[in-house]
């Protein structure tokens, strides 16, 4: 999911003001990056309600760490890095209480009304993505859904580009195998 475009100058201005403690400027940043952050977390945890909460948590962490943000890397990547950490923390907490795969599937089990709303294939894709190991899932989400380049993913997750490529390759191979039926039918 791509966010709407704003000029670099405007973004720099919002960041500088937010770093100086301006909540309204930070609110602009939240409004602008809200969708992307929610989606990153959603793709990681598979639950829209949890995703909104976790996204709020990510923005709060971003606010706390904002004075230390260095504009060397794009703000979006920095924010996604925090969001992915929040998502992974959430997954760890979830894993401590229930089996992560069961939790993901339970959360995604369609109720009577959602059967109508959701396409079966889309639901199966979502489940297959959620069944990936978090490290591979994260790389896949940032590449496929957030359209980040390998370099940007490497910066966001603080891993080498080679690792990004191998994790992405692994995730794709796994998913293609899991979703073989749908791919062959296409």
């Amino acid at each position: 999911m791509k966010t709407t475009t704003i000029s670099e100058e405007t973004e720099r201005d919002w960041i500088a003001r937010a770093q100086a403690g301006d909540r309204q400027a930070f609110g602009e940043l939240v409004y602008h990056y809200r969708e992307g952050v929610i989606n990153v977390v959603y793709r990681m945890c598979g639950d829209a309600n949890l995703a909104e909460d976790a996204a709020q948590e990510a923005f709060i962490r971003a606010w706390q760490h904002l004075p230390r943000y260095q504009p060397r890397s794009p703000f979006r990547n920095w924010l996604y890095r925090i969001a992915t950490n929040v998502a992974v923390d959430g997954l760890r907490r979830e894993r401590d209480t229930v089996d992560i795969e069961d939790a993901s599937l339970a959360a995604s089990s369609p109720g009577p009304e959602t059967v109508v709303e959701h396409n079966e294939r889309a639901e199966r894709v979502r489940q297959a993505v959620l069944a990936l190991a978090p490290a591979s899932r994260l790389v896949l989400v940032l590449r496929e859904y957030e359209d980040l380049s390998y370099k940007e993913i490497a910066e966001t997750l603080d891993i080498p580009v080679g690792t990004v490529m191998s994790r992405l390759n692994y995730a794709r191979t796994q998913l293609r195998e899991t979703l073989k039926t749908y791919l062959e039918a296409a």
Partner: protein
Amino acid sequence: MEHVLDWLPAYHDGELKNGQARRVEEHLAQCASCRAELEALQSFSALLHESAPAATLMRPDRFVAQVELRLPSRPAQTSAQRVLETGWRLIPVGLFGAWAFVQTVFIVVAGVLLLQGFPLTANLFSAVLPSTSGVSWLAGQQCFTDTSLGVVWCVADYVISLGGILVVGFVPLVVIGLLYWGWLAGWWLRRQRRVVYVQ
């Protein structure tokens, strides 16, 4: 004909440079199996996008308002904090400067002591530095050959002199090394606190 299967994911993601992308395209134009693999990758991406993004329940302005309400108070970074932060970043530079200084002093002192032992330069140094005592290796040799001095005194003097040089030369280096490792540990801890990495 060499296939380009390994290059296809990067090509599909738009990650290849012009020359590499051109080579892949040239190959694709004449290889049906690689074309099929590329199409499979494209279909796979399309299938992934069938999974809809999060159906957000909150209106954007409400979401923003809720975040703003939950924001803890964070005083803006004061100029003192900024100075401290800059100072923290400059610590390794300062340590390197201290290390270079100590090394230079150590080398110069060692050189002076060595030259003191040579007959040609000893006079010069005794004129410039009349109070310096023989602590160089060569001076030590003379001490051992001079029977008027007791051997025990000679050895003790030599060990003390050498020990002095080692203490003067190495202790600051050890201290600098410890400070650097301490700074590195602090940097690592700060980094860990800031970001939890996914492995």
